[in-house]
């Protein structure tokens, strides 16, 4: 794998192969010494133009468990905040000998631009670009679903026939987009539920179903309910009248959680707004995978770094 930029272009076999490697990586996490020598001597740069402590430390842990050297480059307080361009930053990192760049950027498409620019030769992992994609989040979500469904027999399995309902700010969500492509590639059926203002104006190109009514979606008994975070800035921009009204209409409250099929799982990419999109009872229940998602995130990112940095590169 040369880069990991989007889940749209990943094939079913590629996805399963990556998830299977992540299973091997998860086994490492269960050992007393949680470290492999695989990427010794390789340098991974976490290039974060947006704050995201969770994603950054997850990638950092993944790289360190594979014995890579990790450099954290945060845009705040750096040359970037003094007006340095993406091009100059990339060329600087290239000159320092980065082997892989994990990029989080506020602009959709920035990782693709970086990968195609010729500014840097390193492998690029998209750690979230604007409102476009967040591929490793979708991979860890798929991994988590597969493990819940198949346990230790997960290797080699896809998500054929699994029904996944994703609820919340679809319009601005890179998690929703990456999950749409990956989960459907793996055979799952995805439906989105949101206020009409938080769905894209034209969803005709998305292989999914769409609804406005969370109660109907709950009563349909999906295998998975994934609640998305509502960003603070949406609350003041008339996407919905008030946080209370949002919670009433689209929050996974105790009453809806009680109606949910007994073996449905509840997911959230974090960080959660408890009491807004998800109640504490739902978040803390045994059906919630929130902490598993965090743990699996490290395994999946180890697998991605491994595929990017070990072995022959396709273009070399």
């Amino acid at each position, binding site marked *: 794998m040369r880069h990991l930029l989007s889940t*749209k272009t990943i094939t079913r076999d590629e996805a399963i192969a990556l998830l299977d490697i992540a299973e091997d990586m998860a086994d490492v996490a269960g050992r007393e010494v949680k470290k492999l020598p695989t990427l010794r001597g390789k340098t991974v740069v976490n290039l974060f133009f947006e704050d995201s402590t969770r994603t950054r430390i997850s990638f950092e842990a993944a790289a360190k468990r594979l014995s890579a050297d990790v450099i954290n480059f945060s845009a705040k307080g750096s040359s970037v905040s003094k007006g340095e361009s993406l091009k100059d930053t990339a060329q600087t990192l290239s000159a320092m000998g980065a082997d892989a760049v994990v990029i989080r950027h506020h602009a959709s498409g920035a990782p693709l631009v970086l990968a195609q620019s010729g500014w840097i030769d390193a492998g690029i992992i998209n750690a979230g670009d604007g409102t476009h994609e967040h591929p490793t989040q979708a991979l860890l979500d798929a991994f988590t679903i597969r493990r819940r469904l198949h346990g230790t027999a997960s290797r080699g399995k896809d998500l054929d026939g699994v029904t996944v309902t994703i609820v919340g700010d679809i319009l601005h969500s890179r998690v929703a987009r990456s999950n749409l492509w990956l989960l459907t590639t793996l055979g799952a059926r995805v439906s989105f539920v949101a206020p009409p203002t938080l769905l894209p104006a034209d969803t005709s190109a998305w292989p999914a179903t769409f609804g406005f009514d969370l109660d109907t979606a709950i009563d349909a008994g999906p295998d998975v309910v994934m609640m998305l975070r509502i960003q603070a800035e949406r609350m003041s921009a008339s996407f919905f009248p008030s946080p209370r009204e949002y919670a009433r209409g689209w929050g996974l409250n105790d009453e809806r959680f009680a109606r949910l099929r007994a073996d449905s799982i509840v997911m959230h990419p974090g960080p959660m707004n408890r009491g807004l999109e998800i109640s504490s009872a739902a978040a803390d229940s045994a059906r919630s995978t929130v902490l598993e998602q965090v743990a699996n995130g490290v395994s999946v990112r180890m697998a991605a770094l491994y595929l990017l940095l070990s072995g022959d590169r396709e273009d070399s």
Partner: protein
Amino acid sequence: MPKENAARQEYLIRGATLPDGSRTDIVLAGGRIAELGSGLSRAGAATVDADGLIALPGLVDLHTHLREPGSEQSETVLTGSQAAARGGFTSVFAMANTSPVQDTAGVVEQVLALGEQAGYVTVQPIGAVTVGLAGERLAELGAMAASRARVRVFSDDGFCVADPLIMRRALEYVKAFDGVIAQHAQEPRLTEKAQMNEGALSAELGLTGWPAVAEESIIARDVLLAEHVGSRLHVCHVSTAGSVDVIRWAKARGIDVTAEVTPHHLLLTEELVVGYDARFKVNPPLRRREDVEALRAGLADGTIDIVATDHAPHPVEAKDCEWDAAANGMVGLESALSVVHASVVAGGHLDWADVARVLSHTPARIGRLAGQGRRTEVGAPAELTLYDPAASRVFGTADLSGKGVNSPYLSMTLPGRVQATFHHGHPTVLDGALRPAAEIAAARLAQTQWERRHG
């Protein structure tokens, strides 16, 4: 005097094809078309073989960004004029979003003077509608109209005159001197942080959408305002099928509205945004295939009056970056005629007489620009473009003569080539190559002196 001789060099263009398809020789003398007919001869005239070439009236661009004063790293009046000449233009209307803004008589006269010094084309300044393009109070429209620049077209292009009362007042006020408001139709609230056409593709790419309704609603409001106050309205860079419908309705109702479309909106679609290559970032954004088809049909049936380039040069770093950070705009002067050829002539929407209309006669008329956009007849000013419709080329940076290389057509194969451009009877482009700046400036100076002496 040798300078005068250069300016008074006469030209015999042999065997050109006029837009109506007829074949003729053309003699250019004294800055005018002196003779038309077959088998002409002229002692002392330089001969230009125009066999197989179409002789179009010099092209007129109603929508050019020359960037000077203020952004000389992007373009100057001289380099923009050179780009224009290379594209077959003999006149450009220079948009007002310079720095300082062209919102006073002083600035528009400065731009006019820079154009005269460069000498490649007639540079006709456009005046800002509002002070500093801020949309809050009217600029001194009358002073700009009465200045030596004789401004008749006013536009805040880059920004929409969004305040309906300011728009009404502007439309009314310019009636005093036969002016026109050229509106950049973009409802600002509906396009906050907009990055590309809003639709299925923007949903996938995660780019904030620029909905068609943000253009169409402003055009609808403005044509009704123009009707109410009995004024003349021009709509810049129409980009959507719905806008074509609104303008068609307005014209059927007798409203005095004209509209332009850019070459890039006639040829390119939003699919090009998929790779986040910022060369394709432009405002209004590239639209859907259906919109492109509607724009072509609208141009063919006269709903859209003209093609204007919206030539928008930028330095390399403004495009060599992530999509959100990139500047809007494309250079378009050098490629305009070839793109019109490829998009609407090749498909049969327009013939060459229509091209002469939409790229010369009508833009000159809308802008009230004397001496430009005239038919090719004896006595008319010698403003002429010779175009080779049989040529074909892979468009590259060598085809660009301005400072900007932000062309969306690089490495695309385009038909045709501008072989020669004559401005005031003097070639600014000959054998497909731009003439040197010193020669053009000298010819321009000598022409001016000759005109003063001979009236």
